[in-house]
């Protein structure tokens, strides 16, 4: 999609260049600035959402490279202003400006490699020049967003301002002389050392081909002129466009966009009436900012639960520990406390006690929470009107849910709640397939553990085999340094997963959705495309089967 631009007079002796449907292509707009001696402010705030995505086609990458060159070659003092999520074209153009001003809550991403694309033009080299290798690795290798505070420290952002005065700040920004960064990686020895380090880290992370290609290209193109770099990037983009991995990543990205965004949670106060496992729901809701009252008749369950929650938060989210725990109040009384609570989560099979139900507001959403293993039975036995949420694991580690209700309105509200909490809500057919596959995986996992296999060994095996990311291993709470382990356990586990998928009727099944669900739930690496995607990949290339020793198990 061609993006059109327009210039306007800004504060003082400045011109603002921003996207506008009625405008002209960027090179033409910039050409009009010939003779203008003031400052050019590139306003990147208004870029349409579609243009925020990375360039995923060879021609588009070339086009973006040209736009970057236009901005970088301007003789004026150029200042980019950024707000919200800065990625894709906005990120590429911001790097070409001489200075950058952002709002304090902006987030900066280099999203390309996560979607199987190459950062276009000279983005790779500009990024490293500005930020140094540390931040470069963070953005590219570790695929983590950069906060404005970190960006300012690293030199990627020169000043911050609240949205109302962002343009004024850009107009009055004094040119600053940046301290030159160490460029050890520009020497032959430095290039070799850092390249090996980055590639080793990517391998340990089980990173996608795009990330590996981007890092290799960055080091290999260090001493090449601009036109050769652009050609290298275009070639790499062509290679990636034909790769299965990129296709998987982009397909999953689109499924994720379609099913997991656009929902807001409007609940402020929640009541959790649960025994064992109530702490997980209380913790989840408190982490999302709700005031939670957790009721359970047994004091020991409450005390143990809060202790568990505190330990989990200390370990995984220490910065949110105090805040989340402060939102939870406990009670051993389950018959009051409903006044002003717009959400009730319960594990009881029956309706709520009458006294409590009378206290709740008329529009309160009451849901039952159940484990997905009871999915088929519960679907058959659920009384009409009762809304049930099924999760494959506990709510703190699950990312997938299914909702069942005889009442469409309630089901919609429950689905909206779960999406607001960051879950992928599956339709019935996909949920059956997904839960059956996950149950197969869990059964195989339990068999290994019962046979005396160390849990760490199983996880290392999964990771070494490329079926689990480090993040997933961490979530299983036994994170240690990932070592290579024989993939024996992984074969059986993954076969359990596929067996579960094959057992379900796939007529009309949205396989992308199941793949995404399994990726979110198990840590299956996204670039392998989930179990269906991976099966498709290895069937295209029997050599993979041979090297992985999976031929007998998977091929008919």
């Amino acid at each position, binding site marked *: 999609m061609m993006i059109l631009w327009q210039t306007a007079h800004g504060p003082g002796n400045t011109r603002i260049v921003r996207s506008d449907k009625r405008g002209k292509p960027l090179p033409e707009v910039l050409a009009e600035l010939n003779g203008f001696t003031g400052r050019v402010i590139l306003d990147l705030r208004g870029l349409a959402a579609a243009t925020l995505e990375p360039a995923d086609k060879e021609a588009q990458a070339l086009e973006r490279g040209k736009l970057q060159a236009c901005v970088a070659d301007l003789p004026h003092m150029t200042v980019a202003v950024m707000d919200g999520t800065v990625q894709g074209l906005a990120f590429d153009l911001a790097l070409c400006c001489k200075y950058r001003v952002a709002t304090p809550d902006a987030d900066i991403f280099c999203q390309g490699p996560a979607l199987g694309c190459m950062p276009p033009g000279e983005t790779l080299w500009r990024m490293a020049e500005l930020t140094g290798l540390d931040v470069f690795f963070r953005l590219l290798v570790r695929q983590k967003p950069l906060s404005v505070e970190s960006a300012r420290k690293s030199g990627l952002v020169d000043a911050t301002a609240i949205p109302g005065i962002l343009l004024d700040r850009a107009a009055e920004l004094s040119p600053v002389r940046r301290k030159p960064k160490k460029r050890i990686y520009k020497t032959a020895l430095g290039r070799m050392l850092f390249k090996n380090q980055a590639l080793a880290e990517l391998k340990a992370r089980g990173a996608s081909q795009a990330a590996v290609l981007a890092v290799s290209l960055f080091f290999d193109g260090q001493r090449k002129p601009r036109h050769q770099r652009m050609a290298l990037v275009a070639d790499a983009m062509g290679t990636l466009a034909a790769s299965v991995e990129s296709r998987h990543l982009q397909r999953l990205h689109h499924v994720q966009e379609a099913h997991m965004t656009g929902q807001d949670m409007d609940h*402020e*106060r929640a009541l959790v009436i649960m025994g064992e496992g109530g702490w997980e729901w209380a913790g989840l809701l408190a982490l999302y900012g709700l*005031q939670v*009252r957790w009721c359970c008749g047994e*004091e020991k369950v*409450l*005390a*143990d639960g*809060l*202790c568990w929650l*505190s330990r989990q938060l200390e370990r995984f989210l220490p910065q949110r520990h*105090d805040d989340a*725990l*402060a*939102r939870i*109040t*406990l*009670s*051993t*009384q389950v018959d*009051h*406390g*409903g*006044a*002003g609570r717009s959400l009730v989560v319960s594990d009881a099979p029956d309706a709520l006690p009458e006294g409590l139900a009378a*206290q709740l*507001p008329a529009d309160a959403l009451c849901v039952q929470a159940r484990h997905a293993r009871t999915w088929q039975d519960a679907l058959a036995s659920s009384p009409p009107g009762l809304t049930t949420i099924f999760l494959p694991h506990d709510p703190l580690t699950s990312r997938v849910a299914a909702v069942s209700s005889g009442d469409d309105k309630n089901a919609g509200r429950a689905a909206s709640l779960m999406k607001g909490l960051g879950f992928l809500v599956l339709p019935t057919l996909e949920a059956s397939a997904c839960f059956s596959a996950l149950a197969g995986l869990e059964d195989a996992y339990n068999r290994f553990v019962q046979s005396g296999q160390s849990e760490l060994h199983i996880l290392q095996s999964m990771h070494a085999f490329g079926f689990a990311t480090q993040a997933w291993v961490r979530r299983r709470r036994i994170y240690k340094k990932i070592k290579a382990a024989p993939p024996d356990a992984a074969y059986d586990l993954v076969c359990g997963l596929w067996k579960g998928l094959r057992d379900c009727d796939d007529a009309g099944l949205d396989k992308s959705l199941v793949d995404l669900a399994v990726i979110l739930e198990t840590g299956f690496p996204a670039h392998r495309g989930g179990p269906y995607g991976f099966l498709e990949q290895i069937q295209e290339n029997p050599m993979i089967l041979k090297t992985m020793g999976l031929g007998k198990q998977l091929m008919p």
Partner: protein
Amino acid sequence: MTWRIAGGARTPVGQAKGLLGRVPPMTLAAQVCEETLARTGTRPGQVGRLVFFCTTPDSLPPFAARLLARRIGLNPETPALMLTEDDVAPFIALTLSGQLEGPLMLAGVSSASSLLGQTSGGYASVDRTRFNPDTGNLITDDAEALAEQCGLTRSALDQAALASSQAAHKAIKKGLWTRDMMPVLPPPDYEGFVHQDQALQRETTAESLRALKPLRPGPGGLITFGHLALPGDGACCVLLAPAGSGGPDKAGTLVSQAGVWGETEKTGGAAFAVTQVMAASGLAPRDVSQLDLVEKSAAHRLALVDALDPCWAPKLNKAGGDIAVGHVGAASTLWHLLALRHCLADGQAALLAASSAGLCGACLIRQEGAP
């Protein structure tokens, strides 16, 4: 303005640096407020005003009342104020709260633990909350001065402390003090709930009190630790609904005639507040079945009896005294209010009085209808 006690909750009283000291004071306050809303079946949006009392404001973040209001989910339009005048603060809140459409939420918290060992402006931080702004005396010196002024003897002080302690144990046995208690689960290990007052002195006897050494060395020293209500940790919240002119709103435990006055030597501490409230209500001492004083020390207790008509002596602190349990500032006043709700029979009236921060205050409590 007449208010009806809709309900409330309190935490146990914790010893300074004890189990409750591990819970941040704001969390304690939020927990009692949440519990009060739950027990009274009140939606946060219904609350008309929140008045937050804290004798140890150094232990709280800035704008604590507003933060508390947001944390418990009150409407952003609901005013939330903070008072730091120790025991009399609830009377100030009642005096200043005019006609409100919604209930008035009074919440108090005190955290001696967070201040113990800290100094500020030459004082130990915890002592700053326990001194008389008129005389500059700490509580012990104040009690010594009162003892000297009223001619109290060591044995009289010991007896008063013992009577207070026995009344407290009796009240706990009857459930007057424990009925509104909510258990607290202290971090970091969350090993178990705290159900009972941690600071409660269980084995106070005449002998044990006699054996204590005076806190001020020298020939004139009378006051011992056994005579003082020691500062502790705890929180209490009471929800007061505006009582209508009649009908169902008028039934229940009603609070009225609240007032606050400056305390001078002439006014005789809380005694002045008691006489003022009695005069305003038009009641005679025989119409009032109980007089509850938020005790700071045995000397304060005896000084009140000394300043009032002797007929008040048997009515004093029948619902329990603070010396055996500890003192948590305005939260102590609030839990006395809750305890009185449980011990008054239909048609009975009681007075609640306190003196602190150079002020004295009192209010009348009546039980209308079956308790």
